């Protein structure tokens, strides 16, 4: 009798435990993304697709939060910028890595010194700008840069801190496939080409993430990704192509989530002496000849917003007063005639055909618009792996390209794509049409020495206006739109980030 009662009590207890366990039982989400990770070494891939994975396993000193990607503390609780070359970070206490090692200043020093090793890092540029990393105490680090880098802190969300002890003691091959970070998720299993399974880090310093198990399935083929969503095999899908937008929207089980992308698409135009496009009137005419509204409507199927400049609104240096030149083919013809090109001229338009949304089609449309005002365009679109080296070599005249800056700082962008090519200083490396204007260079260089962020922002805005209105360094086209699709009615709370990263601690269901 007694034993039966005991058994019964035990059974009830067990039932209670099981019942209580049920709601807390791990929530799970399956996400199909468009790009697979290359490796699990957080410094070895500086593409956003790669950083998007790393942001779940690792933390930076700072992080980006919210709809506009505001800079927020992460492994550093706060930071100071006492002079142009010095950055002081106060580190968070009590944080541990996934292997139990405590996080401290030695790990920060190790991480920043690792950046300049080409064997393991694609952040060589960041690594080489650092003069020294000084450990003041276990939780204070002072980083000195060689030149003033006004956007140094703005970059700290993508430099992920690694554990010194385990990174040094493990085989280098193991470091490439097993991430040991402080992040909200721990890697469970990575089967290359198949899936990445991760589980919530219960000891995460921000608290355990709402979703316990995340399974990421990279599917490169967009129609297959779409099939995965429709057949219910994925909860969230990234990178919905514009041509599949309508079928996804019509499907009652699915919901489309879109947000303006940070990336702008524009045409870079050189100004070599003696070339027609060195004349500002010709530049203006080419700008006015392109019907951007039609490109957005017909080619982007409405999923883009017209751009009047290269940076997007959250970027330091964005200037809301800059307006697009109106579409006016007649005016363009008149300007061309004034400049002495009433019969037009010939120019080669280059661009990638596998990089941006509808890139080759946009280039074709541009060629047609320019033909209408008498400019003969020879079209040269090719795979990005062949196109980008030409940009780096600076041998182009006129090309389509897209840009957004991970640091939210226009200054860094302009040094790369607008400053005259200068190999010694490392400026203008992606100024593929070798645009050059002494006034612009001078104003740009002056911004690096302005300490006050507000004043620097103002100068950058002035610079931006000068580049877009007085010089027409580029012909801006549009900002892309990021499209995602999720299963409707599953209670999935998901708001896309401006940088397109998939940070799973921000998603709940």
């Amino acid at each position: 009798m007694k034993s039966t009662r005991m058994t019964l009590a035990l059974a009830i207890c067990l039932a209670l435990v099981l019942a209580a366990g049920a709601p807390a039982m791990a929530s799970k989400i399956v996400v199909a993304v468009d790009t697979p990770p290359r490796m699990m070494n957080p410094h070895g891939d500086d593409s956003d697709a790669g950083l998007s994975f790393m942001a779940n396993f690792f933390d930076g000193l700072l992080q980006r939060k919210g709809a506009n990607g505001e800079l927020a503390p992460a492994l550093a609780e706060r930071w100071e910028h006492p002079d142009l070359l010095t950055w002081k970070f106060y580190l968070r206490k009590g944080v541990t890595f996934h292997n139990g090692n405590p996080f401290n200043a030695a790990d920060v020093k190790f991480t920043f010194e690792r950046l300049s090793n080409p064997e393991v890092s694609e952040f060589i540029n960041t690594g080489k700008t650092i003069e020294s990393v000084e450990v003041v105490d276990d939780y204070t680090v002072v980083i000195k840069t060689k030149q003033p880098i006004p956007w140094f802190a703005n970059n700290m969300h993508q430099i992920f801190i690694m554990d010194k002890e385990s990174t040094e003691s493990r085989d280098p091959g193991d470091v490439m496939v097993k991430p040991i970070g402080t992040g909200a998720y721990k890697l469970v299993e990575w089967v290359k080409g198949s899936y990445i399974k991760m589980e919530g880090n219960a000891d995460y310093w921000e608290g355990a993430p709402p979703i316990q198990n995340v399974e990421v399935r990279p599917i490169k083929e967009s129609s297959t990704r779409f099939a995965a969503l429709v057949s219910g095999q994925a909860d969230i899908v990234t990178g919905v192509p514009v041509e599949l937008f309508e079928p996804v929207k019509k499907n009652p089980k699915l919901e489309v989530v879109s947000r303006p992308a940070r990336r702008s698409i524009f045409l870079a135009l050189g100004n070599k002496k003696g070339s027609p496009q060195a004349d500002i009137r010709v530049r203006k005419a080419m700008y006015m000849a392109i019907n951007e509204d039609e490109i957005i409507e017909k080619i982007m199927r409405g999923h883009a917003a017209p751009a009047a400049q290269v940076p997007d609104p959250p970027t330091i240096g964005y200037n809301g007063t800059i307006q697009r030149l109106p579409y006016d083919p007649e005016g363009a013809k008149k300007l061309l005639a004034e400049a002495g090109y009433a019969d037009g001229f010939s120019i080669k338009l280059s661009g990638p055909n596998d990089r941006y949304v509808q890139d080759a089609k946009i280039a074709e449309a541009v060629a047609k618009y320019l033909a209408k005002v008498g400019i003969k365009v020879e079209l040269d679109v090719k795979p990005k792996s062949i196109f980008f080296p030409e940009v780096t070599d600076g041998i182009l005249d006129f090309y389509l390209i897209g840009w957004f800056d991970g640091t939210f700082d226009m200054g860094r962008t302009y040094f790369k794509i607008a400053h005259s090519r200068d190999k010694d200083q490392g400026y203008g490396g992606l100024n593929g049409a070798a645009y050059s204007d002494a006034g612009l260079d001078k104003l740009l260089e002056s911004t690096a020495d302005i300490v006050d962020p507000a004043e620097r922002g103002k100068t950058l805005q002035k610079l931006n206006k000068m580049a877009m209105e007085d010089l027409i360094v580029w012909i801006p086209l549009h900002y892309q739109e990021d499209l995602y699709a999720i299963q409707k009615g599953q209670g999935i709370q998901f708001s896309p980030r401006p940088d397109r990263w998939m940070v799973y601690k921000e998603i709940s269901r």
Partner: protein
Amino acid sequence: MATYIARRLIQGVIVLLAVSMICFLIFRYMGDPVLTMAGRYATQQEIEEVRRAFGLDAPTHVQYARFIWNALHGNFGKSYVSRVPALGLILERFPATFELAATATLLSFALGLGLGVMVSLKPYAWQNRLVMAGSLGGISTPTFLTGILLIMIFSVYLGILPPYGRGETVTIGFWRSGLLTLDGIRHLILPAVTLAMFQLAVLLRLTRAGMREVLTEDYIKTAWSKGLSSRKVIFKHALRNVMIPVVTVAGLQFGEVIAYSIVTETIFQWPGMGNLILTSIFETDQPVVVTYIMLAAVIIISINIVVDILYALLNPKIRYD
């Protein structure tokens, strides 16, 4: 025989050298991997520094000689993209491709042989004409279309088969197998059928042609007139003689299917070697692509040599001098 094998082996090595050399030359025109490796914000100087660090500043023939030297020591270099040994990266994907290719080959072999025999017996029956027309479709429909159509029908509209991936897998030693779970087999059906389609059509037509020729031979007439059962005549006397070329072609195709499953694997996000190779080509990951092509060449060359040797063993009339 021994001299024959030795000669074939030497020929194989020459072919491998030629293949690797062509790969190396092609990569001169496939884009610059250093640009990605140095990072988006690298300056010209930093790019050159990375180029030196990876030995990519040396002239092509020096790089090639270095590659051959290392390859002879079993070292095929590290992937520029994932920075781990290229050979390991490829071999890790081998089981997936092998299982897919083997299933597809078995499927096409069984169906091709069965249908081929059926069609050859009554070539003018309407259902058999339909099969022949279908096989023509199988040969001429490109794989990517077949794959996408199958996904649309069976995954999107009917929702009965999964559209991508391998499903649940079981790992035995280094071999990750999807054949041991129901989920794994369900995931295998669509890609295997897609991959089998082309092969099936070829084997079917080969069997049919062979059977029609053999069925008119005198010894078959003798067999019929002896009053043997039709099963015995068709399968024992006729089909056995047709089998030799069919088996040869199926064997050769198996090598090709392994090497060329790129399209099928990409559509179905099948985590095999073909999928890896396509990504690597786009990312100018020279070590992985070159290693893969060398590996594919080794597979095809060895299958050829084995088939040739088997021929000599199977048919003593064949002499190699």
